[in-house]
């Protein structure tokens, strides 16, 4: 990642122009001057606070009294004595496992429809992106709450087809589903990335496959998907990380409780409730560290799996 081409070779030490050495020192100092805000942030706002939170995770701390060392008690309680914690783990996994593939499938489907140069492609692209732009806001969460409520528009729509409605967000069996739909609705960002990827595929690939007698569906599975796999991988990584961190919609729609019956108690919502609802800072810190480690493992797993199905063009056809 560091461009070695410009770096002076050791052999050039003697041949260096007069300004060589002091110039390099000046540049090194300048480098750290430019980097100083970032370094201050790295240590002051990121690394030291992380270490402090590791310490807090072994304590009882409510902000008012000094932290009291309790050893592994927080972790023990989390894993063995807190059913709500496991509820939140389950809800988060279920949310990520359903919303990420659904969102990516919609994004890919629309991208496939859009990538031919049709009339109005630019306008479609922009309009399809609007939900991604607004989807994370409280306003949309409020709209969702009304749409999927007992007297909401979704039920009105279903009534047209004679399907009985229900208060979707008040039903533990369906509440998380409304959040999944909200997440999938924001398909615009991965769609635009898919579109860019599709544009990279040489047309000759499809022509060759068509000449071989491959139909649309065969072309999709044997040409489009393999050649698109690096972009698909990129989207899977981004969306997985985002999926595990969902907060706003779950918090707002459930009225800040993760209800009904903890069905929308995403991990981050539960962490917030422990830390800032009842000021159990030690317990919340322990949860944060478990989250960090779990996300690291999941990300590593996604990257590992990538070597099985991601096809890079420069690898050739072997």
């Amino acid at each position, binding site marked *: *990642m*560091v461009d070695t081409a410009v770096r002076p070779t050791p052999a050039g030490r003697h041949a260096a122009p007069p300004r060589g050495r002091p110039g390099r020192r*000046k*540049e090194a100092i*300048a*480098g750290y*001057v*430019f*980097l100083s*805000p*970032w*370094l201050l*942030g790295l240590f002051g*706002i990121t690394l030291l*606070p*992380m270490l402090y*939170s590791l310490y*807090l995770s072994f304590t009882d701390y409510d902000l008012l009294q000094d932290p009291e060392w309790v050893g592994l008690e927080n972790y023990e309680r989390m894993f063995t004595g807190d059913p709500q914690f496991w509820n939140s783990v389950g809800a988060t996994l279920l949310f990520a496992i359903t919303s990420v593939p659904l969102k990516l499938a919609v994004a890919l489907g*629309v991208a496939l*429809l*859009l990538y031919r140069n*049709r009339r109005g492609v630019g306008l479609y692209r*922009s*309009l*399809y*992106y*609007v939900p991604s*732009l607004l989807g*994370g*806001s*409280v*306003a949309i969460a*409020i709209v*969702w*709450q*009304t*749409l999927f409520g007992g007297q909401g*528009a979704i039920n009105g729509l279903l009534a047209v087809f004679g399907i009985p409605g229900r208060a979707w967000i008040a039903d533990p069996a369906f509440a998380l589903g409304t959040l999944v739909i909200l997440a999938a609705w924001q398909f*615009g*960002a991965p769609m*635009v990335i898919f579109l860019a990827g599709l544009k990279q595929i040489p047309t000759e690939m499809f*022509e060759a496959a*068509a*000449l*071989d007698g491959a139909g649309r569906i065969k072309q999709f599975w044997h040409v489009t998907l393999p050649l698109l796999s690096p972009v698909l991988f990129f989207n899977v990584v*981004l969306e997985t*990380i985002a999926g595990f961190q969902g907060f*706003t919609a779950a918090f*707002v729609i459930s*009225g800040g409780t993760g209800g009904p019956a903890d069905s929308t108690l995403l991990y981050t919502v539960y962490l*917030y409730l422990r*830390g*800032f609802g009842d000021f159990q*800072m030690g317990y*919340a*810190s322990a949860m*944060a560290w478990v*989250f*960090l480690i779990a996300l690291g493992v999941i990300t590593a797993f996604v990257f590992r799996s990538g070597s099985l199905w991601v096809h890079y063009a420069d690898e050739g*056809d072997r």
Partner: protein
Amino acid sequence: MATTTVAPVATSPAAPGPAGQKGRWYEGIAAHVVLIAILLVALYPIAYMFGTSFKSPQEILNNVNVFPRQFSPGNYVDGWNGIPGVTFGTFFLNSAVVAIGVVVGNALACSLAAFAFARLKFPLRGFWFAIMIGTLLLPHHVLIVPQYVLFNSLEWINTPLPLIVPKFLATEAFFVFLMVQFMRGIPRSLDEAAEIDGCGPYRRFFFVVLPLTKPALVTTAVFSFIWTWNDFFTQLVYLNDLDSYTVPIGLRLFLDSSGQAAIAPMFAMSVLSLVPVFLFFLVFQRLIVDGINTSGIKG
């Protein structure tokens, strides 16, 4: 893959190629029908929000149509004054202060760090760069508890400081990375020419590289603004005092104050809360959609 080049070109119109050549005449129309249908579904919630903001409270409950039967613009007045003692103007002002602070902080601090990574040679550069990439993957929920403790001890809670100050310390690694990538694309010969003319690293940054980084700076500014305007989590954590509330936190007040009367004004204020984001989108539409292509920025 083995291709049979024997097939005569004349038969190829029957074999539909997804790109380039034209499909059958009705396929284009069918595609537009599907695209418009999906678009209607996708934009329905936004249209519903807009239409509902003009309905009376009773009508919201019994009219699921987008269009109001009776036009009630009074919802906007009620919503604006909806909270005893504090109007939505305060929330908008607070949001604007936070968003502008974040935009300035990100543009300034991230470009400084990016210049160091992209253009200067100093010991441990590779090491720090790797750490910067590592912080990209760090979920901010992990830092929220210790940062809260820190800002609480500084007595910054209920002020915009916890939301703004970190951005002046380039904690938004994503934008640092974006600008590093961009600056690497600027021809090095320009720097070298300036260097020969006697420009040190500082003047090179301000007079050569920074002006050429404008597209990346604008991208950073636009996304900083939109993300900050939509942000809920950090603002919820740091702002507990009604006077310090931003728009997203203010909106939630309507939800807490139960009773059907709050629904109509809530929709009106929801619409208003999205106006700045919409305006940014209209102005920078091309840049936003193209910017995602190249950088993978998320909405």
